[in-house]
């Protein structure tokens, strides 16, 4: 290790080397590792008023995790049915959103990656523009459309599909559409990046050998695009499970997202350790699910983020 450091400073000079090393350490240790560990530590502590922190009552406890499973002590139910249900539903919905996004985006990514011409740049621009606009505004735009007297209801009723306005919000359709909408770019980009590097001749060759359209994708394109697909799916899953804005704005009154529970613990109940514990549970579960899926589909960690 000292050898590596010596070479590092030789190569970058003392001043530059220290600057680089300092920034990298600040980022990795100060911003990534320590805060996460700190949150983990915090989640095992009781919720105390500031003067008592560090005092005799500040001991490690599993209370916050127990709360998620069993609910408040002496509660009417054996389990914390409400929160667990929200947790479960959040994960299922995130999986659903991921699959929906993959199906929606794969053809677009394939088309963009395999077609040449000026109009592709225009398409790319059109893809990016919505993401230069505030996350809240995007969700808000969908609410205008899916609202009870929104555009969609007006149009559908005008066409005579419904007699009365359909409540897209209460039925979670607005939420799913919003979550899907929020992460389209994150799904398209990794897949596009990989497919763009796929030699067109491979597809031509497969077609030449009489492979059907479906078989070309199944045997040539999808295996090649696997790193991009897994990258996109991982990001969409993690981010939609961790979404907060879309559920707050588009979610129906009865359908909570797990992140909203965390938010409530922090902002409404002022119970930070409880919120931290929920956040840890969310993070760890999501990571485990992603690792499981990666094992299932035989993808490497190194492919993510490429």
């Amino acid at each position, binding site marked *: 290790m000292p050898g590596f450091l010596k070479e590092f400073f030789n190569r970058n000079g003392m001043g530059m080397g220290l600057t680089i090393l300092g920034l990298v350490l600040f980022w990795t240790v100060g911003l990534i590792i320590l805060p996460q560990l700190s949150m983990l530590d915090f989640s095992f502590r009781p919720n105390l008023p500031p003067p008592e922190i560090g005092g005799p009552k500040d001991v490690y406890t599993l209370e916050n995790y127990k709360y998620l499973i069993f609910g408040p002590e002496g509660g009417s139910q054996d389990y914390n049915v409400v929160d667990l249900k929200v947790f479960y539903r959040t994960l299922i919905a995130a999986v659903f959103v991921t699959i929906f996004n993959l199906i929606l985006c794969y053809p677009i990514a394939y088309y963009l990656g395999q077609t040449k011409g000026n109009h592709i740049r225009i398409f790319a621009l*059109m893809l990016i523009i919505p993401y230069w606009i505030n996350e809240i505004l995007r969700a808000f735009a969908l609410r205008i459309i899916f609202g009870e007297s929104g555009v969609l209801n007006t149009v559908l009723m005008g066409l005579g599909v419904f007699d009365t306005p359909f409540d897209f919000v209460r039925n979670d359709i607005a939420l799913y559409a919003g979550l899907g909408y929020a992460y389209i770019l994150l799904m398209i980009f990794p897949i596009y990046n990989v497919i763009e590097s796929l030699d067109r001749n491979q597809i031509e060759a497969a077609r030449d050998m009489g492979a059907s359209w479906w078989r070309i994708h199944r045997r040539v394109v999808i295996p090649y695009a696997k790193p991009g697909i897994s990258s996109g799916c991982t990001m969409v899953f993690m981010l939609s499970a961790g979404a907060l804005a879309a559920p707050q704005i588009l979610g129906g009154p009865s359908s909570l997202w797990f992140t909203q529970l965390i938010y409530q613990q922090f902002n409404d109940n002022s119970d930070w350790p409880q919120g931290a514990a929920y956040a840890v549970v969310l993070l760890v579960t999501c990571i485990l699910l992603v690792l499981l899926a990666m094992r299932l589909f035989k993808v490497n960690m190194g492919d993510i983020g490429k």
Partner: protein
Amino acid sequence: MMSERIIRYSIWIYLGIFFAYLLGPLVIMSITAFNSPTFPRATPWECLTFEWFSALFQDQRILNGIKNSIIVGLGTVILSVSMGLAGALMLTQIWPKLRATYYTIIIAPILIPGVVLGISTLVFWDRINRMLGLGADSFLSNGLFLTIIGQSTFIASYCLLVLVARLQRYDLALTEAALDLGASHAQAFRKILLPFMRPAIASAAVLAFLASFENYNTTTFTFGEYPTLTIELAQKVRYGITPAISALAFIIVALTVFFALINESKIKRKEQVMEARKNATVAELSKGVKVPGFLSGNPAAIVLVLFCIGSVAVVGTATAYSPDQCIARVKEQKQIEAEERIKELRRKRDADNLKKFKGVFDPDEISPEEEEAPKQDNNSGFGGVFDPNALSGDDDAQDGSDASGGDESGNNSGFGGVFDPNNLNSD
């Protein structure tokens, strides 16, 4: 071939649906910015109005949010681009055995939910703050500081990905050549590597600013006393909406399109210059390259010019145009409709008819409670300022709400006395 044509058509149909899903919401939201009802809606179209724009610019909370967002954005750009660049430089020369671990650590923030990042930032710096024995008003618990730190944690990873892509094409021999010619490491960095990285740094900076500007999940835990625009918007969206927000969205869309077009026409122009340089002889080069006219063969530039003309025209119309007459007419019409409806209801009640529905309804009749809002605000003349309660205005409290709605909006929101310029010649 028949099947090929079908495939091509279906591709285009798919693209059409896809982009409708993608862009439709923005278009519809933009339309609502010009429609007069106080609840943002595109249908039914009532009156063309520009009052939501002036309402937007008189909303102190929004303006304050924009100010905070810009401060946070600039801080995040500086911090995350420098961390991203340092991280990328480190990635290219780190000890091979550490490389995979290091890469996992610096990419992880992209995958960690923003909520978690916000919480961990808050908890960690709160603890540091306490360990140092500082008060609740110290620098370390300042909302701007926490937000910049929290956002930079993951935005730096985005920057890193952008920067690494370019850094991989950098020839290390260039730095060595500079050193060999007598430059110090800092000079070699500033004069050789930095200029080479400039396009990527610019992209990373734009990306970082946009990501910071729109971030909600992390910021919502860290903003403290400094709500950013996104936070303000979220509050508004949750507790009451006016088309002033649509107006803001429209402005952002317009600016985005504007800059995208500028960028596009610049790229095109650069291509043309390169083409010209390539074809030019030495003699021509020394005389300066003859660049084809700015517009020729540059569709983006043409659209850009049209876009500018269009915006000037719209702004011009906005200053001259007054929607009052139209609004008054719509209001009158609605009052008549409402009266008729009441009569109708009475008639029905009188007839003691048990059947509630008698065929196809007029769209206006379907959600009367939301029809309510426009009337209140139109009457009051307070542009864009309204009472959240107005949204759920009661069907029967029609007459009274006109006045009270207006008053409340002034008091509740705290913007009383901020008049729409149009209001001066109304009433």
